[in-house]
Structure formats: structure tokens, C-alpha cells
């Protein structure tokens, strides 16, 4: 990495059918930590993630990845809320992102084996991915995202509907990835997970950044009333 990754949003808005679902948002994301985007349903968390990833059409505003969009996209990965499995084996799913980059075959084979071990699916390499369990699918999706060693990894509720064990496995993988230099930006509804993983928090409400700060400060001492009641578990409307 020559220049450290940074993403800068300037007055970004996203509208669908005339209704603003995000923004205007101006945001600067740099550094090397784990950022959690939290907020109630419909606050625009997923949309914000997609904007940052560059796959959402902006209604106005600008986005700057500090490098050309093509290069930036190549060094990002995204894990969807419900994992999308290619109708292939686990091995082929893991290999796919590298094949797209025309990585040499033996290099792919080594990487696939390595990552299959990391995600605990080395015994399932030849099973069809669509038939894995929910937790295994999510792990495979994560492995497939990390196999390109992205600079930035986006995750949309990676642990929704997972049990404690799978959640722990995935959190361990995320911390590992972060430790080896991958910037992580994820949404969650699980505030306990947020405390465990996050270095800083973006609190979204009604499509805007309502509050932002380091995780300790946010949980101990939220600045806004809404964040306080959100943390208390009140229902925000």
C-alpha cells in the first residue's frame, strides 16, 4: 500500500422515486480500524455501505477514494447480508475472485486451501456451496471476500441470524483480517458485537450521520439524545 486508504464523501444524497433515503452526508473515513455503522432499520446503513463501495447510484454529491475508482473497486470487497453463493463447489467459490484477476492456477490452489482452513471448511471443499448451512455460507462468503486481501472490507450484518459459535468464528476472522491491514466497515444491529469489534461508530438516523466517534466515547457518553435512547434500547422512530 503506497497511500493509506481513505474514502471521502461530499454532500452525497441517494434518492429513489423522489424520496431521499440517504443524505446529504459528508464523511471522511480513513485510518485502519473497524468502523461500525449502526442505527435503526431504514436509517440507510446498507445504502451508505453500498455508496462507500461504489455500487450505488448517487443522486448528488461526490465520492473520492483517494485513488482511481477502478483501482479502488479492485481493492474492496463486500459481504452481503444474505450470502450469495455461486452454484458451484466451495473450492470454486473461493477460487472465483482470483480467477477473475487471472491469478496463476497453482497460486489459486494454494490460496484456496489456505483460506478453506482459515474458515474451517477444508473438509467441505468439494461440497456444493448452495447446500452449506447458514453459518458455513457466511464464512465462505467472508473467505471469498478476503481471498483477494482487500484494503477495505464492507460487511452488511455479517452475523444476522447466526448462532454464538458462528458469530465468534466470524468475529475472529474479522479481527485477523483487520490486524493484517484490512480496513473494516460494517453494519450491525448487535450492540454487544459493536463494543467487541468496533474502533469507531457512525450512528445513522433518517439517512444522516447523527453522531460519530470512537467506540468508547460513543457508548459511555453519547452526545445526542437519540443516540442515548438508541443505546438504551428504546425504539427510535
Amino acid at each position: 500500500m503506497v497511500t493509506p486508504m481513505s474514502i471521502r464523501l461530499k454532500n452525497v444524497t441517494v434518492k429513489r422515486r423522489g424520496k431521499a433515503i440517504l443524505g446529504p452526508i459528508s464523511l471522511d473515513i480513513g485510518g485502519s480500524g473497524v468502523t461500525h455503522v449502526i442505527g435503526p432499520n431504514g436509517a440507510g446503513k446498507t445504502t451508505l455501505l453500498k455508496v462507500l463501495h461504489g455500487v450505488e447510484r448517487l443522486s448528488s454529491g461526490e465520492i473520492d477514494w483517494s485513488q482511481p475508482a477502478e483501482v479502488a473497486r479492485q481493492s474492496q470487497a463486500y459481504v452481503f447480508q444474505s450470502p450469495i453463493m455461486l452454484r458451484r463447489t466451495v473450492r470454486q467459490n473461493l477460487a472465483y475472485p482470483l480467477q477473475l484477476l487471472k491469478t496463476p492456477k497453482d497460486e489459486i490452489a494454494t490460496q484456496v486451501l489456505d483460506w478453506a482452513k482459515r474458515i474451517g471448511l477444508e473438509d467441505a471443499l468439494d461440497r456444493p456451496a448452495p447446500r452449506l448451512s447458514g453459518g458455513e455460507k457466511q464464512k465462505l462468503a467472508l473467505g471469498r471476500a478476503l481471498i483477494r486481501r482487500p484494503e477495505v472490507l464492507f460487511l452488511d450484518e455479517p452475523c444476522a441470524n447466526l448462532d454464538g459459535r458462528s458469530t465468534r468464528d466470524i468475529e475472529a476472522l474479522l479481527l485477523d483480517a483487520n490486524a493484517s491491514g484490512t480496513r473494516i466497515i460494517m453494519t450491525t444491529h448487535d450492540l454487544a458485537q459493536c463494543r467487541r469489534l468496533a474502533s469507531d461508530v457512525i450512528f445513522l438516523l433518517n439517512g444522516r450521520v447523527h453522531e460519530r466517534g470512537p467506540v468508547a466515547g460513543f457508548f459511555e457518553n453519547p452526545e445526542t439524545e437519540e443516540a442515548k435512547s438508541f443505546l438504551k434500547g428504546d425504539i427510535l422512530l
Partner: protein
Amino acid sequence: MSEIWAGIAAAFRLIFSFDADLVEITLRSLQVSLTALVIASALALPFGTWIAIRRFRYRRATIATLNALMGLPPVVVGLIVYLMLSRSGPFGVLGLLFTPTAMIIAQVIIIAPLIASITHQAMRDLWAEYHDLLISLNTTKRQRILTLIWDGRRALLTASLAGFGRAIGEVGAIMIVGGNIDHATRVLTTAIALETGKGDFELALGLGFVLIALALAVNFAIHALTRTESEGRW
């Protein structure tokens, strides 16, 4: 009823005696329809996939046209190909009329829309499933189409088999452009039409059973080769 039994008996006699004419006619049927299938698939599978993933201005009109072309009357296709290839037509100089090539051209025109349309429907569903992932991975258009074709190969096989079924059983167009010339352009369907016209129902039925057996054999062979249905739903 007795004619049907006689037909079955005639069919067995023809098949097991390796009747030279029958073998020739059968091979020509296969040659014409399989060649048409390969050409039509090469055109229609990528095209059907392409219109499934690409948003362009006249997409809806294209799809509607394609679906309408599925019902293209073979006789009319035959007539138009005939006019194109006849001595006075624009491609007359090629001298293709009344050759197997002309029959292949007509069959490609008949089955390509069918294959493209079925492909489009199957690929549209698969694309809806894969869309977010393939966009996120920053795939090129070419990579997307190849991925969809590969992962949807079972559905594409079905599309191709539907095309083959239509081609091998088709008579109107190839009769017109091929001319049903003995030892040159006679195939199973045109031979059946001829024998029926002559009143030789035994031979016609015999040929008919061979035709049905051929269609089944090709389907089974392709299914066996690609092991469809043996690996579950995907």
C-alpha cells in the same frame, strides 16, 4: 390399428437390417439438425444471456419480438430462405438452394429465437441471484456472461434440447429449401411426408419411429454426458 403394428414391424426391420437408405437419411437428419443446433446455440445462448443482464433502450421490444419469433411458421421461413437463395435472389450466386446448407440455414432461423428466449428467461433469474456479487467483484461484461452461462449450463442445455426437438421434427421449411431430393437432401421428416403421400404407411411409420427413437437417444445422450439431475438442483 394393424397399420401401426405393421409400422413398428417395418421400423424394426429397417433398423436391424441397417437399411442403407434409412441410415443415410437418418445421418443426414442428424447432420442437418445438429449443425443447425450448434450454430443456433452459439448465437442464441450468448445473446439470450446478454439481454438478460443488459439494460438498453429497446430491451422490452427485443424480448417481445424474440418471444413472438418463437412461433415463427417454418413454412414462411422456408419460403423466405428460398427466395433469398434462389437464382434470382440476393444470395443466388452461392448456389445453396436444394443443399443441406440451405436446410441448416432455415433451421437456424427457426430455432435460434426459441433457444434465445428460453435462455433469457433462465438467465434472468440467475442474474437476479448473482447480480450484487458480480457487480461487487467488479466483473467485466464478458466475465459476467461467461459466469452466468457456466453456472446456468443446465438451463441452457434445456434450451438447446428444445431447439433440437424443434429442428429434428421440422418439415415445412426444409421441404421447401431442401427439395427432398433422394440421396441429397432427403431427411426423416421429408421422407415421412413423401411416403405418406405415396400411401406407403408402413415405411412412413417405420421412419416415424426411427425419428422418435433418434430424438430420445439424443436427449438421453446429452443428459448422460452432462450428468443433469444427478447432482441435485444446481
